[in-house]
């Protein structure tokens, strides 16, 4: 259950210098993205990206079955999972069948969504996240706070301290090079001794039965190329029709995510190594229901680039944990309500509707429109933020005619002038309590002055 975005954000902002640092770090990513996407064909690429995802979603069942046929023909075992629990038990079954007890896992938001790590650990399986950022949050027993940069909220000095405690690096060591080297040794060890590798997938290709994994650290490759078993855990919306589609998808992904033309490693896996096994677990977990919802369907187009997080002025100033959901930021704010509207009721309102997320989205998801749509669904479901239904119903009545409005406005301005500021700006008043003065109330409204001057009857 989400305790509410406003409260979590207020807590995050209490450490103002840290909040400013977080904002700057993400703005840096946004600027890198701006430079990397300054291509003459960028807007055409976005259009093509939106079209290829829309096309894949319109033929989802067909493409998934085609993928299954191709992958099976390539020697891959394909599994289907209706929900998180089924996904977890399929993965556990594969591991137990192979006698695997040590898993090297590369980054996968789907396994976070399904809670795979704690589930496997409870069954006596050791899981090491091999993406550096994910390893940091794993060692700290935290979830990722950003879908692409899981430890964006950690400062290098804090990582030094964490590594000192958990890996035995020198006390006070915080140089990024030294810490990365220590992590590399630590992770190589886990990778070499793993007897199974779990990865996510950035795309699966129906035409070829191939799985595409993008990383900058090569950790997914080290895992799947050394362990005897590779399991790729994939949300069904990741399927695309043809390999040619990757020509668009891979270009928009890395440029939007990290401002790189392409990720350092882009691996196409189509079949297991001789003597090794490869499995793909296709997971629904609510995606089919989302597909049936025409108004919100395009949220399934998301390629998890994180550009909307980096650009969002609210995410940058409230941090990933304030969203209380596995996917954070604007895209999380439209995905989470589909999972549980009541639990995530504050998220559609965690936005100024500034529109920046819609303009950066490489597959043109109209996130602001869906935020608004979730707000009106909240009204219908009775899950609006506390007080909204009453206050806005009343405001609607006041604003429906000039007479009502003029009277209320006159009394409101008198209240602003006559009631002591100390009371008006008390703790109860959200307008003033975080450092903002109430407006100065004019003695006359515009219409009153026009009447006085004879321009209005």
């Amino acid at each position, binding site marked *: 259950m989400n305790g509410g975005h406003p409260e979590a954000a207020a807590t995050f902002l209490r450490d103002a210098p840290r909040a400013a640092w977080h904002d700057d770090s993400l703005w840096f990513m946004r600027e890198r993205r701006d430079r990397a996407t300054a291509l003459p064909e960028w807007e055409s690429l976005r259009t093509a990206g939106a079209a290829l995802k829309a096309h894949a979603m319109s033929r989802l069942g067909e493409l998934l079955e085609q993928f299954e046929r191709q992958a099976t023909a390539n020697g891959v075992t394909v599994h289907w999972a209706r929900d998180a629990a089924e996904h977890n038990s399929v993965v556990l079954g594969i591991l137990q069948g192979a006698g695997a007890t040590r898993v090297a896992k590369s980054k996968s938001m789907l396994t976070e969504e399904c809670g795979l790590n704690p589930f496997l650990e409870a069954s006596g399986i050791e899981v090491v996240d091999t993406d550096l950022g994910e390893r940091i949050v794993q060692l700290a027993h935290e979830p990722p706070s950003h879908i692409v940069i899981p430890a964006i909220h950690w400062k290098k000095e804090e990582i030094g301290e964490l590594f000192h405690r958990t890996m035995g690096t020198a006390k006070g060591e915080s140089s990024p090079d030294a810490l990365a080297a220590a992590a590399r040794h630590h992770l190589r060890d886990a990778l070499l001794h793993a007897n199974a590798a779990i990865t996510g997938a950035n795309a699966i290709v129906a035409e070829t039965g191939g799985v595409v994994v993008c990383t900058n650290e090569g950790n997914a490759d080290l895992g799947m190329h050394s362990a005897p078993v590779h399991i790729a855990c994939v949300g069904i919306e990741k399927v695309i029709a043809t390999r040619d589609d990757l020509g668009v998808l891979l270009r928009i992904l890395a440029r939007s995510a990290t401002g790189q033309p392409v990720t350092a490693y882009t691996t196409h896996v189509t079949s297991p190594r001789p003597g090794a096994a490869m499995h793909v677990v296709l997971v629904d977990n609510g995606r089919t229901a989302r597909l049936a919802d025409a108004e919100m369907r395009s949220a399934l187009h998301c390629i998890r680039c994180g550009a909307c997080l980096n650009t969002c002025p609210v995410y940058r100033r409230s941090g990933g944990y304030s969203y209380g959901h596995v996917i954070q930021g604007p895209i999380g704010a439209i995905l989470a309500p589909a999972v549980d509207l009541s639990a995530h009721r504050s998220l559609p309102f965690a936005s100024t509707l*500034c529109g920046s997320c819609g303009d950066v989205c490489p597959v043109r998801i109209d996130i602001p429109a869906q935020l608004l749509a979730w*707000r009106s669904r909240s009204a219908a479901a009775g899950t609006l933020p506390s007080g*909204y239904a009453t206050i*806005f119903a009343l405001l*609607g009545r006041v*604003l429906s*005619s000039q007479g009502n409005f003029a009277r209320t406005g006159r009394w409101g301005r008198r209240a602003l002038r006559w009631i002591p500021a100390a009371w008006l700006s008390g703790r109860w008043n959200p307008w003033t309590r975080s450092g903002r003065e109430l407006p100065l109330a004019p003695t006359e409204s*515009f219409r009153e*002055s026009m009447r006085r001057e004879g321009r209005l009857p």
Partner: protein
Amino acid sequence: MRVALAVPCYVDQLRPQAARATMVLLERLGCDVSLAFDAPCCGQPMFNAGVVSAARDAASTWAASSAAFDFIVMPSGSCTHHVRHHLPGIVGSDEGAHAARVTFELCEFIAGPLGTPQLAGRFPHRVAMHLGCHARRGLRLGGSSELHEPPGGPMHTLLAGLDGLTLVPLDRPDECCGFGGSFAVGEPDVSVAMGRDRLTDITAHGAEVMVSSDPSCLLHLEGIARRGAPALRTLHIAELLEEATR
């Protein structure tokens, strides 16, 4: 040209000088300004809060009032955006579609239907331009950095054309100020943090004046500036243009 002045609810009550400046400016530019448009609100506050049913009466009143006019000018990008993009769907009648067609944001109207993209005037100050997000990304009245567009747009052109005016470059030219309607009170901490950052960007570049075409952004930013940046003069674009063209 006969135009109706539509004064947004909070402008009527809390920033009457922006409404008056709009009226005076339009008359100076040769318009026959009617004040007969008498709907108080387009319904945006209720609509954006999700309470669409509560927005219906206000939006219907607004749409009905629009029927008598061929041009309606609003000194607000945000309200214009709501009228153009959401009001027809809320009202669901021909009147709604008519309202959407004939309603213009002030700078958009001056540069478009009125055909005067630049005005002769003088404003010898360092000015930071804050274009509201609904004007920028909703009505496309200014460049979006996400789309790699140059600043541009009617407000930018009007300001840049005034004698003596220096447009102050900002580190984040199109960052949101954090008002966001109900967001300002539903998420007060983030809202004020965003406003402070916006003002810091503006004052750090030595702006004497901050100008916006959205009085709601001004309401919020002024409230914060009165605590942190009291020397900054905050003006609505109508107020600035009216002063510059006297």
